[in-house]
């Protein structure tokens, strides 16, 4: 049995979590997920400004902090912290932790090859809209393939203490140690599905151990010291999800089922780079003491294509707010909204969309919200988006004046006018597997 823990569900997750995972109990592998869809474009811009950057800068200091314990306990770390510059990230890890062996997985970043790929007939159509990539070619900021677990397992086979990747499927970071240690093959569909589902359960960190859980949430103990999730994986594909004893949070059927269903599509066809997993095959049992055991998992052969994550400049947006108090808070906010819209109309500003929410009344749940007659205060929240930066910036001037020139009790403008922000949009596409070449490099 091997133990694989996840100490980071996204870049910005709890900094103490990975340190506690290594200090508070036994683990063999520590995975860390730093990359969201838009993170890659931010990192690409950082790299353009400084060729040594473009990776998750939290990661090398973390390794420096835990390097001694990693060596003492033989814990290996797998992280997609490399972003769009895995080699630079790995070199920085070597600099701050010179006794560790560091390997990188390369090949996910296809930005330099995009024109060749397009010329070779790979249209990379948007999976949602069907539009070919050529329609936004001049606005693309990053393009990365979601790699699977086999190149990461290859990196582990070099004897690396730290494996740094760029874009890969989140669950691949958990599956790779199982492939490496148990010798699973590309045709072991059920085993790969088991490892993929195990990775899916832990990839969002504490969302598997009681975080963001709606089942009896008030009774979940000691959330301040919540334990992050650990897979106890076995060579035959059975596994358990648990957390270190004495930590906060909860692992039971309710917390595990919520995370199993998180961000999945058709449960019989969970398409990943390494297999297609069948969530309807999952059998789970609560073993008590914060441990849930999984058996019976089934999978099918991997798809012939890999998913590509492309980011591109869409336009600009700004969101402004004003607060109105009772009496008649909602009516005042509605009147202010009408004034802003009329002034935007008179200015002749064109937007793709103007969106108004009445925060405190129905912003989150819309028509499904609990009716709230006569709320004591309401925040008017108006947003605009469009291609024209000047129009969006002009909009940002139109809210604060209402404090003096609109309905009474307007307040909450202390932050001044809102900022126009760039919208980097996400373009999901597919690319044949054989168009992608991966490579492992050990950093000297």
């Amino acid at each position, binding site marked *: 049995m091997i133990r694989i823990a996840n100490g980071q569900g996204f870049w910005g997750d709890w900094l103490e979590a990975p340190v506690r995972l290594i200090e508070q109990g036994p683990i063999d592998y520590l995975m860390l997920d730093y990359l969201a869809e838009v993170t890659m474009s931010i990192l690409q811009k950082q790299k353009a400004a400084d060729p040594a950057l473009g990776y998750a800068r939290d990661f090398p200091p973390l390794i420096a902090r835990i390097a001694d314990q990693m060596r003492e306990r033989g814990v290996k770390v797998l992280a997609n912290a490399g972003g769009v510059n895995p080699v630079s990230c790995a070199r920085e890890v070597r600099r701050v932790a010179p006794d560790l062996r560091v390997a990188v997985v390369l090949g996910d970043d296809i930005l330099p090859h995009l024109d060749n790929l397009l010329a070779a007939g790979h249209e990379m159509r948007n999976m949602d809209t069907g539009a070919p990539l050529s329609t936004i070619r001049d606005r693309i900021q990053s393009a990365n393939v979601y790699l699977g677990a086999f190149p990461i397992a290859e990196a582990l086979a070099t004897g690396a203490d730290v494996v740094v990747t760029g874009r890969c499927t989140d669950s691949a970071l958990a599956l790779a140690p199982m492939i490496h240690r148990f010798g699973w093959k590309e045709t072991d569909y059920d085993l790969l599905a088991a490892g993929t589902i195990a990775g899916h359960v832990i990839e969002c960190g504490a969302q598997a151990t009681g975080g963001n859980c*709606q089942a009896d949430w008030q009774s979940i103990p000691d959330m301040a010291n919540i334990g992050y999730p650990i897979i106890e994986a076995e060579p035959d594909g059975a596994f358990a999800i648990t957390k270190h004893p004495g930590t906060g949070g909860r692992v039971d059927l309710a917390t595990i089922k919520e995370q199993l269903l998180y961000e999945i599509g058709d449960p019989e066809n969970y398409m990943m780079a390494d297999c297609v997993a069948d969530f309807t095959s999952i059998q789970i049992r609560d073993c008590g003491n914060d441990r849930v055991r999984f058996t019976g998992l089934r999978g099918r052969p991997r798809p012939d294509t890999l998913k590509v994550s492309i980011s591109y400049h869409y336009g600009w947006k700004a969101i402004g707010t004003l607060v109105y108090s009772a009496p008649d808070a909602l009516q005042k906010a509605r009147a202010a909204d009408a004034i802003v819209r009329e002034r935007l109309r008179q200015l002749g500003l064109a937007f793709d969309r103007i969106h108004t929410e009445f925060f405190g009344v129905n912003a989150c749940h819309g*028509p499904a919200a609990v009716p709230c007659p006569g709320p004591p205060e309401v925040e008017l929240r108006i947003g605009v988006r469009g291609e024209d930066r000047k129009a969006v910036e002009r909009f940002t001037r139109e809210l604060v004046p209402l404090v003096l020139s609109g309905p009474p009790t307007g307040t909450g403008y202390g932050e001044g006018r809102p900022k126009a922000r760039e919208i980097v949009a996400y373009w999901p596409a597919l690319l044949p597997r054989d168009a992608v070449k991966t490579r492992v490099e050990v950093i000297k």
Partner: protein
Amino acid sequence: MKIPLSRVAHARSGDKGDLSNIGVIAHEERWYPILVREVTAERVKAHFGELVRGRVERFLLPNLGALNFLLYEALDGGGTLSLRVDAQGKTFGAALLRLEIDAEDTELS
């Protein structure tokens, strides 16, 4: 009798682009048939009204006593484009639990 869905189920929601997914899980596995009967794609679509511009698709997971819903064009463009405070639909699961459903006392005991 009429009860809120929260009486028999819990939920978690997430996003993929402009698509929101909501996993709905029976508190007791024997209540799963109530979910299958009451929480149809049509009722979910109606519950969210103008928030969901596209269709709603439902999948069954009898092994987990759970349903998975996909709500298309549900997040005002999704992720970075959305102008909503809940751009990722994080609260959609809680919203769905307010759905009023029919269940007999005998089913719930």
